[in-house]
């Protein structure tokens, strides 16, 4: 069984984007701006890509939330991993992930991206069981394929996660703990 080199996983954890200014208020404003214009990358692998396109079309219209699909990784903030990740595709996903700038997030869409889905079984040689094996996944959207409403709920959940700023909340909690220890 080919085991992909686990050691490579740590090289790709979420690079903490340095807070531009110390003020929490400004950070919250920037989070608010990031939330209302999340630009995902057009990057569909299999069946879930069709439901991702359906979410972008006339009936469910992601453009309402300011979400435009950008074709280059350089101008996108969210990587929606929609479909089965095969071993042959892992290096490409890693390069795409590292090409994305600044504060970036990952949505694992569909059971294949969450845990290998209908193709995960004992003798499986071709696919990686889930995107979180080598990507820091923020939001999991279950379903095979998930309905477009499911993806929209996932995106809204990501918005809640960003504005609630769990990343900053953790940092504030650490600072408070350090001060308490002193």
């Amino acid at each position, binding site marked *: 069984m080919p085991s992909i080199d686990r050691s490579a996983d740590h090289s790709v954890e979420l690079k903490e*984007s340095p807070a*531009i200014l110390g003020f929490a208020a400004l950070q919250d*404003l*920037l989070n*608010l*701006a*990031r939330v*209302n*214009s999340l630009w995902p990358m057009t990057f569909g692998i299999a069946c879930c890509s069709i439901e991702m396109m359906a979410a972008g*079309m*006339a009936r469910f*219209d992601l*453009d*309402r*939330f*300011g979400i435009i699909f*950008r*074709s*280059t990784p*350089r*101008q996108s*903030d969210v990587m929606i991993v929609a479909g089965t990740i095969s071993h042959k595709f892992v290096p490409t996903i890693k390069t795409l992930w590292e*090409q994305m*700038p*600044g*504060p970036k997030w990952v949505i694992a869409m569909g059971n294949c991206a969450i845990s290998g889905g209908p193709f995960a079984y004992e003798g499986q040689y071709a696919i990686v069981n889930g995107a979180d094996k080598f990507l820091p996944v923020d939001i999991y959207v279950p379903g095979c394929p998930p309905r477009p409403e499911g993806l929209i709920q996932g995106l809204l959940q990501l918005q809640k996660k960003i504005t609630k700023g769990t990343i900053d909340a953790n940092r504030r909690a650490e600072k408070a703990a350090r001060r308490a220890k002193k």
Partner: protein
Amino acid sequence: MNITQLPFIKEIYGFLGHDLTATVTGILIILVFVPLNSAFLVWVERKVAGHIQLRPGPMEVGPHGILQTLIDAVKLMSKEMITPKLADKFLFWLAPIIIIIPAIVCFVVIPFSPLMQVREMNVGILLIFSFSSITVLSILMGGWASNNKYALIGAVRAVAQNVAYEIPLLLSTMSIIIMTNSFKMSEITAAQSPVWFIVYQPVAAIIFFISTTAETNRAPFDLVEAESELVSGFHTEYTGMRFALFFLAEYTNMFIAASMGAVLFFGGWHGPFFPGLIWFVVKVYILIFVIIWVRWTFPRLRFDQLMNFAWKFMIPVALINLMITAIVLKVL
């Protein structure tokens, strides 16, 4: 007591003199007007495209998503600025700056209304053409410097396309200038008070409109950043605020093209009973709506068809039109 008597402004007015303060205030107004206007245009394009495609377009930010582009700009500001390792650092950094300068400078000569014109230059139209050809230079710089095959193909296409469509643009404007024999934009608008030039020059108007769409790289001539072929053309490698500058410049160029069309063919600020400025803005936005409308209905031309269309069809027709106007003027 006019404005120049106010305490603070009196010193500046005294120090700079009438002309300079007028220009400085004009330029300040332009520097405020250009980003706001292109942000508004991006929002207009997304709403019009939405309604053409049976969907509402941006709705979340502000009433009907009016602040959407502002939020995009703030988000792009907070993005990490990546310079590719093998990129030509200096050119990569310079390209977005070079593309903004001509876009802003061209506003100096546009006659918004009889008294609202920053600087009345007798080279009016010539200034706009010369500066708008600098954008090609920055596209080539951006495409070459980002060391990306798609960007390079996009940049090379941009040069060939703009060179090919600069000539019919100039020829069609020449037929107007022969009629008014002056480059001053205000004189051109003044000469159109009874009858607009589109009545005399319909062919030149069509050629002008097609070549401005090609000049600003808008569909069906958007081979430069062809979404489905070249990923996103010359600004494939640009992230954050640099990409926002390219985006801003594209929409400002569109506004300049539409305003030149309004001035040359639709009689600038002439109009029955509304004040001049209202008429000018209405005409410009109607032209912009047509440009947006064209973008969302037509597929994209192939590169050699684009070239044949310019060299083999547009230039001969423009030349013939110029000749006919010359003969007619001679005869009359």
